[in-house]
C-alpha cells in the first residue's frame, strides 16, 4: 500500500448510471446506529487494567465519569464511593478512545462509486475548501470504526497543492455540527516531490526521475503565502476568500499540516513557512524525518506517520523499516502521531490500533505505541484538553476491551462511551453477521 495515492480506484474513470446510485442510497438509507443521548447517569468502571494513553498504566483501576467528563481516575483499592452504574472490568482493559489524524472518513463511501467521492476538489490552492460540511455522519464506514475503539478523527480534504481545511470530529453524531470536536483545526498542503514519475502513457520510463520543476513549485508556494500575508496586513479589499481562510495560520491559532517526504523537502518546507511567519507546523508522512530530528525538535514540530502496514519504499530497504518507523522517530525525541492516508484509507482506518500494535512489536514500548493513537494525536490536533487520555476533566470518550486492544486477537470491545454517552457497537456488518448466523442456526 502506497501512501500518497488516494485510492486504487481513483485513477480509473468510471461513471455509473444515476439510477444505480439512487438505488444504492435509497436501499441503504438506514445506515448508522442512532446516536446515544447525553449522559445523565453516572458510570464507574472498576477492576480493569487502565491504559491511560499518557504512558501510564493502572492495574485494578477505578474510573468514574459524570456529565460526559471523567471525574475520577485511580486505583480500585481506594475506598471511595462508586457513582452510578458500576461496570466490572476485572480481567479487562480500559482505554481512551483512539484518535486518527489525517483521514478522509465520511468524505467517501464506496471508492469505485464516483458519486460518493467528496474528498478531492478541483484546483491547486484551496485553503478555503472545508471538509467538515461534506462529512457524512451516516457513513457505514465510520460506523465500522467504533467496534475497534476508533472514536475520533481529523477529517482532511485531499488533492491540490493546498488541499483545504480539516476539522476534528467524534463518531457518534446526528450531523456534522454535532460531530465537530474542533472546527477548522488545520490547513493541509501537499509538498512538491523532488522526484517525478515518468509519464508512461507518453512512452517515458515509468520510474522516478529528479523533478526538474521542484524549485519552481516550491517558489510558487512561497509566493502564494507571501502574497496572502501582504493581503492580510492591508485593508483586505476586495475580499480574497482563499487568503482570508489562511489568516489563522499567521496568528498561530491554526496549524499547517505539511504532507511531505524526504529530508531535503522537509527542511525546505520548514524554512519556507518560518520565513513567512507560519510556525505552527505538523509534518505528515515524514519519510526520513529522523534524519532531520534536530531541526524538528528545535522548531517543536511533530510528525504524523503512516500506518505500519506498508511496503518499504525502496527495493533494498530493510523489510521491516516501515514497522520500525515509530520507534526510530520516537527515539529521536520527536512527538509522533499516527495518520491514515493512501490505499483504502477509509475502510482500513479501523485497523489503527493494529498499526500501533505493529509499531510496538518492532521496538516501541506498548504504552508509547498506544500514545501514537491517543495523547500524541490529541496534542498534534490541539484537542488534548478534551480527549487523548484517561484523565480527570477530559471527555469520557473511552472503552473497555476484553484484552489488549492493540492486538487483533483480543481487541473486543464490551462497552464504549463518547463524551459519556454509551455507544451502540452494532454496525451494518454485525447485523449481517447475526442475521446470517441465525439463518443457519434456524435451518
Amino acid at each position: 500500500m502506497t501512501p500518497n495515492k488516494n485510492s486504487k480506484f481513483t485513477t480509473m474513470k468510471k461513471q455509473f448510471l444515476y439510477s444505480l446510485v439512487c438505488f444504492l442510497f435509497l436501499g441503504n438509507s438506514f445506515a448508522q446506529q442512532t446516536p446515544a443521548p447525553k449522559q445523565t447517569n453516572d458510570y464507574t468502571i472498576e477492576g480493569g487494567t487502565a491504559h491511560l494513553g499518557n504512558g501510564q498504566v493502572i492495574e485494578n483501576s477505578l474510573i468514574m465519569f459524570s456529565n460526559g467528563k471523567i471525574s475520577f481516575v485511580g486505583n480500585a483499592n481506594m475506598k471511595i464511593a462508586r457513582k452510578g452504574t458500576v461496570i466490572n472490568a476485572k480481567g479487562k482493559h480500559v482505554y481512551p478512545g483512539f484518535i486518527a489524524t489525517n483521514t478522509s472518513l465520511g468524505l467517501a463511501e464506496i471508492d469505485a462509486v464516483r458519486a460518493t467521492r467528496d474528498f478531492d476538489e478541483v484546483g491547486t490552492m484551496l485553503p478555503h475548501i472545508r471538509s467538515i460540511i461534506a462529512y457524512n455522519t451516516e457513513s457505514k464506514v465510520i460506523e465500522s470504526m467504533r467496534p475497534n475503539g476508533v472514536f475520533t478523527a481529523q477529517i482532511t480534504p485531499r488533492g491540490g497543492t493546498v488541499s483545504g481545511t480539516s476539522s476534528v470530529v467524534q463518531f457518534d453524531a446526528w450531523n456534522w455540527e454535532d460531530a465537530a470536536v474542533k472546527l477548522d483545526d488545520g490547513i493541509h498542503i501537499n509538498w512538491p516531490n523532488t522526484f517525478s514519475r515518468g509519464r508512461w502513457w507518453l512512452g517515458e520510463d515509468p520510474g522516478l526521475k529528479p523533478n526538474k520543476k521542484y524549485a519552481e513549485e516550491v517558489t510558487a508556494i512561497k509566493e502564494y503565502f507571501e502574497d496572502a500575508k501582504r493581503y492580510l496586513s492591508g485593508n483586505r479589499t476586495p475580499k480574497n476568500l482563499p487568503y482570508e481562510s489562511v489568516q489563522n495560520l499567521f496568528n498561530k491559532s491554526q496549524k499547517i499540516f505539511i504532507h511531505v517526504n524526504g529530508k531535503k523537502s522537509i527542511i525546505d518546507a520548514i524554512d519556507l513557512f518560518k520565513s513567512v511567519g507560519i510556525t505552527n507546523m505538523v509534518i505528515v508522512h515524514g519519510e526520513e524525518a529522523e534524519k532531520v530530528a534536530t531541526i524538528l525538535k528545535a522548531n517543536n514540530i511533530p510528525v504524523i506517520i503512516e500506518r505500519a502496514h506498508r511496503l518499504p519504499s525502496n527495493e533494498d530497504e530493510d523489510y521491516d523499516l516501515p514497522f520500525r518507523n515509530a520507534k526510530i522517530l520516537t527515539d529521536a525525541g520527536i512527538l509522533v502521531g499516527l495518520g491514515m492516508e493512501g490505499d483504502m484509507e477509509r475502510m482500513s482506518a479501523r485497523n489503527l490500533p493494529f498499526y500501533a500494535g505493529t509499531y510496538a512489536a518492532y521496538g516501541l514500548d506498548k504504552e508509547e505505541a498506544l500514545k501514537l493513537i491517543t495523547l500524541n494525536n490529541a496534542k498534534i490536533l490541539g484537542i488534548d484538553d478534551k480527549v487523548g487520555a484517561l484523565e480527570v476533566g477530559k471527555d469520557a470518550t473511552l472503552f473497555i476491551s476484553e484484552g489488549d486492544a492493540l492486538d487483533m486477537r483480543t481487541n473486543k470491545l464490551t462497552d464504549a462511551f463518547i463524551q459519556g454517552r454509551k455507544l451502540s457497537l452494532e454496525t451494518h456488518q454485525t447485523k449481517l453477521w447475526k442475521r446470517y448466523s441465525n439463518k443457519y442456526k434456524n435451518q
Partner: protein
Amino acid sequence: MKKILILLFFSVSVIYSQEYFPTNTGVKTSKNTSVAFTNATIYVTATNIIKKGTLLIKDGKVVSIGKRISIPNDAEVVDLKDKTIYPSFIDIYNSFGIQSPKREQNSSRRPQYDASRKGYYWNDHIRPDVNAATEFSFDNKKAKELLEAGFGVVNTHVEDGIMQGNGILVALNPNSSDGYRILDKKSGNYLSFNKSKKSNQSYPTSRMGAMALLRQTYMDADWYANGNAKNTDLALEALNKNKTLPQIFNTGNYLDALRADKVGDEFGIQYTILGGGNEYERIEEIKNTNAKFILPVNFRKAYDVSDQFLADKISLHDMRQWNQEPSNPSILAKNGITFAFTTRDLKSTKDFNKNIQKAIKHGLDKTKALEALTTIPAQIIGKSNVGNLNVGSYANFLITSGDIFDSKTTIYENWTQGDQNVINSKDIKDLTGDYMVAVNGKTYDLTISGKGDKQKGSVKFGEKKLKSDFSFKDDWVQLTINDNDQFLRLAGKIINASNAMQGAGKDNLGNDISWSASKKVKKSDDKKKDDKKSNDKKLVIQPVSYPNIGYGNYTKPQKQTILIKNATVWTSENNQVLKNTDVLLKDGKISQIGKNLSTRGATVIDGTDKYLTAGIIDEHSHIATSAVNEAGHNSTAEVTIEDVVNPDDINIYRNLAGGVTSIQILHGSANPIGGRSAIIKLKWGENADNLIYKNSPKFIKFALGENVKQSNWGDSNTIRFPQTRMGVEQVYTDYFQRAKEYDALKKSGKSYRKDLELEALAEIINKERFISCHSYVQSEINMLMKVAEKFNFNINTFTHILEGYKVADKMKQHGVGGSTFSDWWAYKYEVNDAIPYNAAIMHNQGITVAINSDDAEMSRRLNQEAAKTMKYGDLTEQEAWRMVTINPAKLLHIDDRTGSIKTGKDADIVVWSGNPLSIYSKAEKTIIDGAIYFDIEKERQKRKEIKAERAKLIEMMLQEKLGGAETQAPTKKEHKLFHCDTE
C-alpha cells in the same frame, strides 16, 4: 556534437549499374580491374591471420589471399605496410533503411477485439507475411555512420509485432543499387513479445498472452499446412514458408529470453535470441537454452550520485548493473555461449567500438569479440560469404592502422563489395607526440594529439601555454605561435623517417627565419608511468547474487539436517498443540516429532519460548510474476502464470520474512475465464522453474462481478461481452459446452484443430484442473455452482468470496472451499456487504476456509490477518491458524506435502518469536524443504552488507564522474505491484 567528416568521406564504385540494364552514358566503360592489397596484416577470420600478406579482389569478391600469391599485371597495387585488414563487421539486428511503423491512432478510443487485416491470421500481431524488402529504402546517412563504425553488412527487418516477418541482408554500399547490395532477401524470420503498432487489437495484453498466441499460431500453422483449413490465410502460409529460415527472437532481458526459448523448445525451434545485456544474472539458465545470442553493448553510464538525496533512490540492483554489465559478454564467452554483437539500443553508433573495448577490458577475449562481429553473425544467418575474407567471399573489409579494438587505432577505409569507402585518409601521417621546436634560438614545446586530419597542436614555452594555430596537409605543417604578441609564422615539411620537421618561416618583423622540430623520445620512466596509469584503475566487479538485487543469495540455500528443540509446536493437525517438543528436519522432510530427539550432525536451533508452525500458504497472491491479467479476451484459459513467474521479486523475500512458504500466483480478474495459476514455493534465489511445484496441481482462475463486466474500466470499455452478470453465465455455459464437444471430438480419434483454450476447459470438465474463482456477490456465486453442476464437476475454491456467508449452506452442499480477505470492503459497490465475520460464518458451516492476501503487503503478515477471525467471529487460535496453513494447502491440493507439522511432509517450517497469531510476534526462521531461506540473525548481516556495497558503488561512480566520464541522472525503477484488477 556534430562531427564533420563529410569532406573525406567518399566512395568509389566498381560496379556501376546492372549489366543488362540499358544505359544512356554513351560508350560502355566497364571497369573490372583487380586490386591487390599488399604487405598487410590480414585477418582472413578472427583466428586465421596472415602477416605481410596480400589480398586480391575482383568484381566485389575475394579472388585470392595469402603470403605469396600472383598479382595480375593489370591489377592496381595498394601497399599496406604496417596496416591491418579485417573482414568488415556484420550488424545482425538492425532496422537499417526501414522506418519504424507509427502507432495506429484509435479514434473511437474503444477497445478493438477483432483483427483489422482480412485474409490473414485472426490476430493482427502475427505478421509473418511482412517482407522487409518491400519496406526497404537505402539510408545513406545511417550507412555512413555504420561504415565509420566498421560495419559492412547489416541484417534488417520491419520491427513490428509478435511475428514480424522476414528480414533482408544488405551490404552497406552507398554507390551501388539495391539489386546488388541486397545479399539475401530472406535472411531470417523475426519474432518478439511486443504487439504491432499497426493495430489496436487488444489481444494479447500480456507477456503470457503473447506466449500462448505464439503456441496457438504454430499449432494452427501445422493444421493449415496439413490442408485442414477451409479458408486461405496469408499469414500462416508465409509462416510455413519461412520455417526453414533462421528464427531470431527479440527478448530484451534474461527472463524473456528464457520464456522465448521455452516456447521454441515446445515446437522444436531453436531461436537465436536478441538479449538485453543482463544474461549474466542467470548464466546457468541462459547456457541451458543452447541458444545463440545477439548482444547489445549499450552499457549504462554511471549515475550522478553527487546529490545524496537523489542517490538514495537508486536501487542497489541498478548500481550493480552499471558495474557488472560490461562483463556480460566475457561471462557468456567463458560459459561457452555463442554470441554476436549489435549496435542496437546504442544512442550513437560512434560508441560501439568504445563499448566493445570496455567489454574487452572486462575480460572479453579479442578474438571472441572479432568473431562476434564477423563469423558468428554470418553463422547465425547461415552465410559463408560474409564475415570472412576467404576466396569467394564478398570483398567486405576494413583497412586500419592496427588492432581494431585499440582506442588509438584509426579505420582508414571500409570496402564493401569491392567498393572503396574512405573513412580517414590513410596517407595522413600520425604526428602525435611531443616535439621540441627550435626557432630563433628559442625552444618551444609542441604537443600534437588527435587522429587523422583532426590532429591538433598546442605550444608551450617553458611552463607557459602560448596561443597557437596548427594545421597540416600533404606533409606540410603550418604553425603560428603568438609569443608575447610577437607572431612567428612557420611552415615546414615533415621528414618521414623520424617525424621530424624542418622548414622556413617569418618572424613578427617579417624576417625570414628557419626552424626545425624533433620528436622527443619518451624516457623509459615516462612509458612505465603511462602503462601504470592505464593499469592503475584495477577493475572491481561486484559479485552476482541470486537474484542479483539486495538480499539476494550468493550461494543458494541448501537442505540441512535441522533439529529444533523444546518449542511449542502448532501442528495445524486437529487443533493439536505440542509443548516442549523437538522437531527434526532431514532430507527436506519433517523426519521426527517428539521429545528429547537427537541426531548427529544436525544444526540445532533452540526453540525454548519459541513457537514452531508449518509455513504460511497464501491461496491468492500476485507477487513474483511479470504479468497478472490477460485482458484481451473474455476467456483466456490458454495463458498460464507459470510462463511469467519472476523469481527476482523482492516481495518473495519480504513474504519469507512474514513466514510464508508457498503461494498460488493467480491470474487477475479481468475476464470471466482467466488464466492458469502457478503454485510456487518461495525458494529465494532459485530460478522460476525451481520455484514451481513439481507435479503442480493444475489450477485456473475464474472471476465474477464488476471486474469481469468491466464496470470500473471507464466509459470506453462497454463493448466487450459480457457487460452484465446475466452475460457472465452465458460465457461459462457456452465455453463449457464447446469444451465438452471439443473433448468428445478429440477422444473420438478424428482429426481436430488443437485449441489451447479448450484444452484447459476440457481438463476442468474432466476434473483434472481446478477452478479458483474470484467472487463477491451471492447471486453469481450460486450461479457458477449451478453451471458447474450442469457439466458434472465442482468448483474447487471461491476466492475473496465476500458474500460467501450468505450462501454458506449452498457452498457446503456443493463442496467448495472459500478463501477470503479478513476485513476488506467498501472499495467498490459489490463489496458493500462484505463483512469481516465472513470467514467465521463459512467455517462454522463446515467449509474449508483460508485467509488470503491478493496484496504484496498483506501477504507478509497473514498471521495477523488470520488473527482477525478471533476478533470477528470468535474463532479459537487453532481454528484461526489453520486458515493460513493446512486449509489453503487443502484448497490447493498440496496438503499431502505441506501445510502442517506431520512426519513425512515437506520441511516447510517457521520458527516464531512468540505466539504466531500475536501482533507482537515475528518470524525468526523460515525453512523450505529443509533449507533456511530467511533467518532474522543473518538478515542483520545482510543489511550491513547492502549498506557497505552501496557506499562502495557510490564511491566508484563518484570516481568515474571526477575522472571526467559522462553520467546520468539518478532514477528509481518502479516495480508494479499487482492486484486482481491490475490491467
